[in-house]
């Protein structure tokens, strides 16, 4: 299976091997450092997949709970941030299958690291609303592909859908988003 590859500039540096070993041994102070360092990354993944603040916080808590339980199984085959990013993806998708509420377009999370450059005429409000209006079948693969840059095959593996279906869903998701954002200013006229 292809590996997830979160962008380097978004992910915090890995904890030291000593800190990871202490956290894996159950030391809460060491694990708290992990939570504080990665809470924004994990919450962002959950929010972008679930589209509702309450769900995103519930799922993010579940991510850290699973992280705590499975930390002894982390084998350093990838960086810790990549391992945790993948755990955040699978846990959020599990949460979505189980008990997700519908996205609530009225809520907009705080941006932790300043206003993003989303393109001319597009603000976070417009984009969050447009994503929230997408059906889950389009939203999830489109977020995985274009927000997080995952390969199609990995999206198929994560969502349990055939590769061809995933591609069609992404194409439809892009088309729906493109139409919704036209009014918001994503025209590519530059």
């Amino acid at each position, binding site marked *: 299976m292809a590996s997830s590859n979160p*962008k380097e*500039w978004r992910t915090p540096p890995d904890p030291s091997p000593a800190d990871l070993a202490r956290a894996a*041994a*159950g030391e*809460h102070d060491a*694990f*708290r450092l992990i*939570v504080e360092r990665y*809470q*924004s*990354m994990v*919450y*962002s993944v959950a929010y*972008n997949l679930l589209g509702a*603040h309450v769900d995103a*916080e519930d799922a*993010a*808590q579940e991510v*850290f*709970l699973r992280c*705590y*339980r*499975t*930390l*002894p199984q982390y084998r350093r085959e990838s960086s810790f941030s990549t391992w945790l990013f993948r755990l955040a993806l*699978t846990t959020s998708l*599990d949460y979505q*299958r*189980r008990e997700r509420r519908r996205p609530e377009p009225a809520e907009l*999370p*705080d*941006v*932790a*690291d300043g206003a*993003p450059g*989303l*393109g001319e005429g597009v603000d976070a409000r417009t*984009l969050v609303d447009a994503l929230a209006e997408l059906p889950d079948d389009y939203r999830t693969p*489109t*977020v995985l592909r*274009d*927000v*997080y*840059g995952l390969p*199609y095959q990995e999206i198929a593996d994560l969502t*349990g*859908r055939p590769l061809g279906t995933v*591609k069609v869903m*992404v*194409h439809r998701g*892009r088309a729906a*988003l*493109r139409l919704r*954002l*036209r009014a918001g200013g*994503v*025209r*590519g*006229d*530059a």
Partner: protein
Amino acid sequence: MECTHCHGQLNRYIDGELGYVEVAELQQHLGFCPDCARELRELSALRGTLAAWGGTALAPSPGFAERVMTGLAAEPAPGSPRPLGQVVDETLDTLDRALGHLPLPGGRKVPVKNVIGWALAAIALVEAGRRRGRREREARSW
């Protein structure tokens, strides 16, 4: 009205999935088709917007880390035997991932594992009824 000549091709183009000849044909078409050229510009801009959003760190509500740590207080140490309920929850999640969902009318979906569970329950009921009927027939014959 938008051109349908390169329907689907533009997505494959920006995903880098077209072959050399297909790219050359598409680029030739884009040279004289303003509809497709505009759609390509919009798709490219959209991908840039979504990628920028993916690099945006969103913040959970204040006190999130504290709530996580409070939730961990009742957890056994990592690697120790897990409670049965937790093992069952994780197994059901794994089954959901492995088996997927079946679409229902109205856009709803049902987990395949649930369908299998219902089928097994139905088989068990039928089998129980069959055995009961057999016992009753045997009792009557005595």
